[in-house]
C-alpha cells in the first residue's frame, strides 16, 4: 500500500502513482464515465502506446473506442475534428512532439478555428495528448518543445502538468473543457512517482506555487519545474530564497498568479526548454514589464533552449537548461 497524506482513521484518497500511471488512470476514468470519449492514435491500442500511457485501455473498453489508427497525424487530428463536430469528446494522441508537425494543417487551419467559424455553434471539444520536451536522449523530432508554436495559434489552449497529481486532474479537467486543449506531457517525468489525491484535485485553474520564496521568482513548467525546485533548494543553502511558479496553463497564462509572485519578490527568471526567440519567456517577460514596470529590481531574465534544432542526445545537456545555467540566470538577476 502507499503512503497516505490523511489523518489516521480517515479513508485514504491518495495513492502513489507515476505520471504515466496517473494519466492512464485519468483516461480509464474518462472512458468509463463518458460514453462520448474515445482514445486513438498510433500504437495506443494493443501496445498501449510507446510510453504505455494507454496500457490496458483497449482491452477494457474495446477496439472501437481505443483505436490503433493508420500512421497519419493530419488524419488523426482531422478525424478528431469530425468526431467533435458530431458531439464526441475525443482524446487523440500524437506519438511524439515532433509528429504534431504533420498534424498542423488540421490543427491550425481547422480545429483551432471551427468554433469561431461557426459562431460558437460547433465547439471543438478535444484533448490532444503530446508526449513533450527532451531529457531522454531520443532521436531527432522526439524531443521538441512546441508550446509557443501552439500557444501562438488563436483557438488552442495549452496546458502542461509537472507531476502525477497534476497529470491526473488536469487531464480530466481538460477533457471537460469545451475547447481544444493541447496537453503537453513531460516525457522525461513519466516514471517519477508522487501522490495523487483523487478526491481533492485542488485548484486546477492557473499557476501553482511549487516552492515558496521571497527574493526571486522562477517561472517555468513541465519537466523544468523539478529542476527549478532543485535550484531553489540549492540557493536556500546560500540564503537566497527562491519562489518557483509552475505556470501549468501556457494558454491562457495565469497573469494574476505570475504577477502576484513577482510583485512580492521583485525579480523574475523564466526557464523553458524551447528555443529563445519568440518563446513564451518573451511573452511572460512582456507581461511582467507591463504590469510591474518600475516595481521590479531587475529586468526579467530568460534561461532557455537556444535558437537551434534540438540537438542529438550527446549534446542534449548542452541545450536543455541545467542547474548551472539556471543558477547563472538567478545570479544575473540578483546582481543587476
Amino acid at each position, binding site marked *: 500500500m502507499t503512503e497516505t497524506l490523511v489523518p489516521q482513521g480517515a479513508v485514504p484518497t491518495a495513492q502513489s502513482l507515476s505520471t504515466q500511471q496517473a494519466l492512464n488512470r485519468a483516461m480509464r476514468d474518462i472512458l468509463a464515465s463518458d460514453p462520448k470519449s474515445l482514445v486513438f492514435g498510433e500504437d495506443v491500442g*494493443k501496445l498501449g502506446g510507446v510510453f504505455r500511457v494507454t496500457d490496458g485501455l483497449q482491452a477494457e473498453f474495446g477496439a472501437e473506442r481505443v483505436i490503433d489508427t*493508420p500512421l497519419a497525424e493530419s488524419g488523426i487530428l482531422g478525424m478528431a475534428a469530425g468526431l467533435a463536430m458530431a458531439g464526441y469528446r475525443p482524446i487523440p494522441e500524437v506519438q511524439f512532439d515532433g509528429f504534431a508537425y504533420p498534424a498542423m494543417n488540421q490543427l491550425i487551419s481547422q480545429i483551432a478555428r471551427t468554433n469561431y467559424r461557426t459562431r460558437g455553434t460547433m465547439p471543438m471539444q478535444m484533448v490532444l495528448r503530446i508526449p513533450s520536451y527532451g531529457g531522454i536522449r531520443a*532521436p531527432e523530432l*522526439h524531443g521538441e518543445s512546441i508550446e509557443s508554436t501552439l500557444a501562438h495559434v488563436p483557438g488552442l489552449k495549452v496546458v502542461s502538468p509537472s507531476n502525477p497529481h497534476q497529470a491526473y486532474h488536469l487531464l480530466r479537467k481538460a477533457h471537460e473543457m469545451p475547447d481544444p486543449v493541447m496537453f503537453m506531457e513531460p516525457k522525461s517525468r513519466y516514471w517519477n512517482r508522487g501522490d495523487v489525491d483523487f478526491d481533492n484535485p485542488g485548484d486546477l485553474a492557473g499557476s501553482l506555487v511549487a516552492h515558496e520564496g521571497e527574493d526571486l521568482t522562477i517561472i517555468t513548467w513541465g519537466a523544468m519545474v523539478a529542476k527549478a525546485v532543485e535550484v531553489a533548494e540549492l540557493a536556500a543553502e546560500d540564503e537566497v530564497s527562491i519562489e518557483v511558479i509552475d505556470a501549468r496553463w501556457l494558454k491562457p497564462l495565469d497573469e494574476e498568479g505570475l504577477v502576484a509572485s513577482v510583485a512580492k519578490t521583485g525579480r523574475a527568471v523564466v526557464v523553458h526548454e524551447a528555443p529563445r526567440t519568440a518563446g513564451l519567456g518573451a511573452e511572460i517577460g512582456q507581461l511582467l514589464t507591463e504590469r510591474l514596470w518600475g516595481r521590479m529590481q531587475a529586468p526579467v531574465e530568460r534561461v532557455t533552449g537556444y*535558437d537551434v534544432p534540438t540537438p542529438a542526445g550527446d549534446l542534449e545537456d548542452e541545450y536543455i537548461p541545467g542547474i548551472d545555467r539556471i543558477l547563472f540566470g538567478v545570479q544575473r538577476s540578483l546582481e543587476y
Partner: protein
Amino acid sequence: MTVPPIASPAPEHLWPPQIPIETPADTLRALARHMLVSRTLDVEAVRWQRQGILPAFPPAFGQEAAQVGSAFALDKTRDMAFITYRDHGVIAALESDLTDYMGSHLALWNGGFADPNEARHTPLQAVVGSTGIQAMGWAYAQKLEGSGGAALAYFGDGASSQGDVHEAFNFASVMEAPVVFFVQNNQWSLSTPLHLQVAGGSIADRAAGYAMPSIKIDGDDVAEVFEATRVALDYAREHGPVVIEAFTYRRGPHATSDDPSRYRTLEEERMLGPDPVDRVKDAIADDSWWQRATADAEEAVAAVREGMTRPRYVHGDEMFDFVFQEKTPQIAAQQQQWREETDRD
C-alpha cells in the same frame, strides 16, 4: 460532359519480364556480401545497444534483400536514394561510410555525417512518409537538367498512410518525374499490423489509380529485387514514376526499446521460413566462399565499431554553426553565452 470509361488504360506491364532475367553469379555474390554486412551490423548493433554504446537501434533483420537488392541497382554517378531510419542495407549497398551513418544512432549528430551528394543518399531522418515527395522534386530537377538520373524513394507500409505519400504519387505521375517509389511492406508499423494500416493490403495496387505502373515482388529474393528495381529505374528515366512493393517481414523488434511479444506471437515469427540471407546462401551454394564473405563482413563491422568507439567528439559549438549558412546575430550571441557559461573560452 462526356463520361470517361470506368478505368483509364492500364499502366504498362513491367514485371515479371517477358524473357526471364538471369542474374550473373558474380552479381549475386556482390549482393550477398552487402547483405552479410547489413546482417552482421544488425547483430552487433543490438549487442552494442545492450552494452550501452548505442542509445537505441532499429534493426532491419529480414529486410536485407529488399534494401541491398534495390540500392545495388542505383547508378551512383547520377541517381539518389531517399532513405528513412531502417535502411542500413541501402547504406551498405551504396558503400557509404557505415561509421558516418551510425553517428546518428550513436546520438552524436541527427542525420549522421555523410555528405548526401557524395554518398548518393539523403541523411537518416525519422519523419515517416516524407521521402517520396522530396524524391519526386529531386527527380523532376533531373528531368529538367536532362541528367538521366532517377530517384529511389524508400518508405514502409506504415508510411504509405501519410497524405504526403499519396501527394507524391500524384505529383510524380502528373509531371512524369523519374522516381521509383520503393515500398518495403514488412507487414508491421511498430505494433500496427498491415490489415489495420493498409486498406486492401497492397500499396502497389494503388498505383493504377495514379496511372503509374507497379511491380510486386518477393522482397526476400535479392536477385528478384535487384532485377525488378533495374527495370523500374530504366522505365522511370524514360517515362516517369513506378511503384515497387517488396513483400517482406520485419523479423526483429521495431527498435531495441520495443517488445514485440505485446502484439505478435513467436508462433507467427516461426512460420516465416528461411530468411533472405539463408536464401541467398542457398542460391550461391558455395560454403567456403560463404565463410570468407562472412569473415569479411565481420571484419568490416568490427572496423565500424572501432571507428565508433574512437571518441568522435562533437563540439557543442557545432550546435550553433549549422543552423544556417548565414548565422544570425542572435545565434552568435547565444553561442558566446554558451561558451562563457560552460567555460569553453
